[in-house]
């Protein structure tokens, strides 16, 4: 019995080692070729990057980019058929699921920064967003200084709340900072007057305002708490072969006319499920990032000329 077990193990080991020796593919690409499938991680409410439509199907700007990447991977591996599996992720599960190989790409609006790059890699930046705040027009808050001594909400564990905390300390504003569990709850706090303002990525704020009961009640600030920060699609670290294919595919997309078209589809036109229109024309920094694709985490490197 025991000997049979050992033989079985040895056999399994040779079978596993076989393909690895025969091909030079490594990491994710090898895995995709062997299984004939690639798994995309999506977010359920990151409008308009990655969210569920009325048929519970993930759609969005980042999802469209990921499908282009899938096409490029398929072409690179010369596969006739490549199955795309979809797996939902949250901000807490995206790293473990990417690390343990459950998902191969995370398609959302994850901010690319130097600390995070120690753990995972990002492909070329697909969006840049700055921290601003939304408030009710009736509360007449026009600048960051007007927030002095008021209650302001932001989502806990985000870079935005960190920037708010820093600005509060540096400028001696005496703001009472309320952390919220998620974006929806934070917006609810402004809606119910628990807080006068909600500090978040400007594009997410635009999505919440567009989706609110009465969009005209709210105004997004001109003042920003940060420089525009890059967002990218995440992939596993130390997998240069896969990263090269992904970077190549995204660079080709952004530099072609399709990049701008794709942007307009999600940010300038009505999007499902409720026909919202974010009306956010492409910013000069993003235009530059599309012309010269980069995965740099440094906001300064994206400065528009």
């Amino acid at each position, binding site marked *: 019995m025991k000997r049979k077990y050992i033989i079985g193990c040895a056999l399994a080991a040779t079978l596993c080692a076989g393909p690895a020796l025969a091909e030079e593919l490594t990491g994710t690409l090898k895995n995709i070729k062997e299984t004939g499938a690639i798994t995309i991680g999506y977010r359920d409410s990151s409008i308009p990057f990655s969210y569920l439509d009325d048929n519970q199907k993930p759609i969005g700007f980042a999802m469209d980019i990921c499908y282009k990447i899938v096409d490029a991977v398929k072409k690179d591996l010369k596969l006739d058929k490549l199955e795309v599996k979809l797996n939902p992720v949250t*901000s*807490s599960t995206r*790293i*473990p699921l990417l*690390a*343990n*190989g459950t998902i191969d790409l995370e398609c959302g609006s994850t901010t690319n920064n130097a*600390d*995070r790059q*120690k*753990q*995972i890699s990002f492909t070329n930046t697909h969006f840049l967003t700055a921290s601003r705040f939304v408030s009710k027009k009736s509360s007449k808050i026009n600048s960051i200084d007007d927030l002095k001594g008021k*209650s302001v909400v932001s989502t*806990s*564990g*985000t*870079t935005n*709340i*960190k920037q708010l*905390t*820093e600005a509060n*300390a540096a400028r001696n504003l005496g703001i*009472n900072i*309320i*952390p*919220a*569990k998620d974006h929806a*709850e934070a917006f*609810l706090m402004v809606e*119910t*007057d*628990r807080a006068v303002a909600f500090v978040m990525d400007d594009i997410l704020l635009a999505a919440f305002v567009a989706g609110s009961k009465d969009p005209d009640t709210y105004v997004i600030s001109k003042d920003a708490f940060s420089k525009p920060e890059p967002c990218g699609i995440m992939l*596993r*670290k*130390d*997998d240069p072969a896969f990263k090269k294919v992904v970077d190549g595919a995204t660079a080709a997309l952004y530099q072609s006319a399709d990049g701008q078209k794709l942007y307009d589809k999600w940010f300038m036109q009505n999007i499902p499920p409720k026909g919202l229109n974010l009306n956010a024309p492409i910013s000069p920094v993003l235009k530059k990032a599309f012309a010269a694709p980069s995965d740099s985490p440094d906001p300064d490197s994206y400065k528009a000329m």
Partner: protein
Amino acid sequence: MNYHWNWRIFWEPAPNGTGTYLDMLLSGLVLTIETAICAWILALVFGSIVGVLRTLPSRTASWVGFAWVEFFRNMPLLVQLFIWFFVLPEILPPSWGLWLKQMPNAPFYTAAIGIGFFMSARVAEQLRAGIGSLPRGQKLAATALGLTTAQTYRYVLLPMAFRIIMPPLTSEFLSTIKNTSVALTIGLIELTAEARAMQEFSFQVFEAFTAATVLYLLINIVVVMAMRFLERGLAIPGYITGK
């Protein structure tokens, strides 16, 4: 698994400017302990009152106790906290609601009260069971001695009942500590919330949650030891709970 372990992350400065990541977790731990203790005191006070109400001969008293217990134990804790935090200020008169909303540390008070009331229903049931398990003769003897109902409870029934329910009360205290993590949904930055924030900033998910697990385990071990110590100190030789 392609994961970059970094256990030294705890000694690296956290981006919220209040020290290292370890300081961040420890400040969460302090808030967890504070919330749990406040909630536990409320649970004991209200639980004892309601538990006694349920065993009184008065119909009204036992009905009030029954209503309290069923109201607080049949709703998920998460829903209760949402009701206290989001719904209550909206049904009050607008000026009261606004005062409640703009109160500093609102999540802390809401969590302490919400979890305290939730746990009080459980404490009340334990106490009722404890009183119910005493031989009927105890109460009859107290009455025969001429003690009033209040005196019967104070000197005869409760000292015994509380000793009997010490072990389940330990579990309830542990549950209170663990239930504080639900309060992160109303913005209380306790231990679990800090662990989540840490993984969001540093992307070191496993380190953050391992640390949170160890810290929860440590406080719960301390509580178990303390309660066992108390149990032994209070035991009466010769009685069922003593040796």
